[in-house]
């Protein structure tokens, strides 16, 4: 976007970029859904979707439930799904769960793959979605920095990172025949600090796990067994913003998935992981 009001601040620019992309994808595909993990990024994306459509989101919001999430996450999900009038879909990979798949069985890669990726594949097949909104950001991980705003996945769900379509100006990839669906990434340009400053500016409700209790808080949340809290005294939005500005380590430092091998994330993503 080359034209903007001189002096439009970074958060306002980011918000406008995201709303444009959200509306563009809905206009192109109609049969879309947003993935809501209930974390800070996807809750902010949900907020942006509400803003894009004047409070009434015209597509379903889907939670990929591994059943290993924190209780606070389920509580928050149900409260706001009701309050915001969401068309909520809760998707679970019942087969894998029945077979006992969990973080202690097999590798982390297998667990993520079955309870998240395979779960998503089944849900897409069931509902016939053509495009999915995801709240990933370039600054989260080097592999995510390579993503496009509109990113195709083929019929076997693969991300062809070696040959991505060009995105010129605001012209995005529209669906091609041999592709299963598109991933839409309206928040690609946001950084972790932008998210928190935006949450503070907009006063967006957040799961309590992000706020420090007894000297610990979560900087990134997902499944309870695979997330570690950090030492922190930040129990308010102001303190979280201050803490992040002073912190040198990256956000996913507490995530187990990224630790096994430098390319785990690349493998997960090429297989369809979010």
């Amino acid at each position, binding site marked *: *976007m*080359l*034209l*903007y*009001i*001189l*002096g*439009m*601040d*970074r*958060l306002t*620019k980011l918000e*406008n970029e995201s*709303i*444009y992309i959200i*509306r*563009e994808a*809905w*206009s192109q595909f109609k049969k879309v859904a947003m993935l809501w993990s209930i974390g800070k990024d996807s809750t902010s994306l949900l907020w942006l979707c*509400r*803003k*894009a*459509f*004047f*409070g*009434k989101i*015209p597509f379903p919001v889907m939670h990929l439930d591994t059943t290993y999430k924190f209780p606070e996450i389920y509580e928050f999900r149900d409260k706001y799904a009701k309050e915001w009038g969401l068309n909520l879909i809760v998707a679970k990979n019942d087969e894998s769960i029945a077979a006992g798949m969990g973080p202690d069985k097999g590798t982390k890669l297998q667990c993520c793959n079955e309870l998240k990726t395979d779960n998503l594949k089944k849900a897409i097949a069931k509902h016939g979605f053509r495009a999915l909104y995801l709240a990933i950001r*370039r*600054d989260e*991980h*080097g*592999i995510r*920095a*390579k993503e*496009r705003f509109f990113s195709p996945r083929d019929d076997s769900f693969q991300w062809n*990172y*070696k040959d*991505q*379509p*060009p*995105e*010129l*100006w*605001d*012209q995005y*990839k*529209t*669906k*091609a*025949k041999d592709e299963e669906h598109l991933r839409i990434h309206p928040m690609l*340009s946001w*950084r972790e600090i932008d998210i928190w400053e935006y949450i503070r500016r907009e006063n967006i409700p957040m799961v309590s796990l992000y706020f420090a209790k007894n000297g610990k808080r979560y900087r990134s949340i997902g499944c309870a067994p695979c997330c570690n809290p950090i030492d922190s005294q930040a129990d308010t939005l102001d303190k979280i913003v201050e803490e992040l500005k002073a912190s*040198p*380590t*990256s956000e996913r*430092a507490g995530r187990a998935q990224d630790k096994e091998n*430098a*390319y785990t994330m*690349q493998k997960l993503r090429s297989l369809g992981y979010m």
Partner: protein
Amino acid sequence: MENQNQDLKFVIVGHVDHGKSTLIGRLLYDTNSLPPDKMEEIKKTSEELGRVVEFAFIMDNLQEEREQGITIDTAQTFFRTPKRQYVIIDAPGHVEFVKNMLTGASLAEAAILIVDAAEGVKEQTKRHSYLLSLLGIKQVIVVVNKMDLVDYKEEVFDKIKGELTEFLANLNVQPKLFIPIAALKGDNVAKRSDNMKWYSGQTVLSALDDLEDLEQARDQGLILPVQEIYKLEEKRYVLGRVEAGEIKPGQTIKVLPSGQTTVVKTVEKFQQENLTQAQSGENIGLTTVDPLFIERGNVLCENGKEPLVKTEFSANLFWLSHEPLAKDEPLIVKIATQESIGEVIEIKKRFDSSTMEILEQNAGKLQFLEAAEVTIKAKKPLALAEFSELAELGKFVLIKNDNVVAGGIVAELKNN
């Protein structure tokens, strides 16, 4: 002026192996923008591959990129100086990945063009220069890198500067300045180099801080390409982003291409149903006084300040597909939210996008990575502007089999 809430996006372009990723690594390192765990991970992977610590791995995160030592796709990262925040867009230099370079560069407000002092100006140096001019990026800094490999000699720097100045002038690109650097060692990146006493100009960081924020869209009439219609309860919202001018309740607007007029009833955002106005860059929903038929691809504008509506126009085109363009083959033209079937009816001149040498006049085909002056004919009338006048209605893509196969800009419009 210090402004921490503003950011500036710039792209680093140039020939493969001339040091784009290394310069990025150096910029991040010297501004303390590298998280310690990221540095740890880079050290570890570098060791596993049996190399010295590779700054390039900060941006090159794909396994293939690290093992082969090349950048495949564009990526972005951030740093800040006391003056402002920066978003660095890394762009691959390899010829095969030009579409990824364009993807990154099309988001940039400024560019650093990097040239290897030992190798001098190469094919991609020139092609990327052409693409900067096609994209309309006006703020360009040239850095001559790896000065350590040529014993920091002023003559080498001067020779490259002379050669490139002439080439860029032909493309209407005027670089702000030329800086001799050694990115690997940090000479003239954040700190002035003791190895080049003959150079007294800016460092890369101080040159970046001297760039200007993009100027405001000049005093223009309203341009709002319609994205979609959204019905909610009793309301029928026209959704879109204001690209130029401003929109207010009570304002008379013209709908292109039909030319019908109506009056704006409300300009709205979520929980702001009665905005007094919206300006360029803002995404809004508007309602109209009459139930006029408006659809995606219409362009709302101001009476008397409307852009031209045409089916035929001259353009500069850059062909991105391995499959050549054939004159008269059916394609889709997309300009802002407008879309029409169309064709290239004339390829007036065909260029090598690296040397800018004319390959053929009145050509029948256009090959991968060639540039051309063409005439495009669209089936539906399109609201257009010359790129230099109003970029949003002056830049377009061509689509074939659902893929973007070319980028282009509207060259000249005659009102005939």
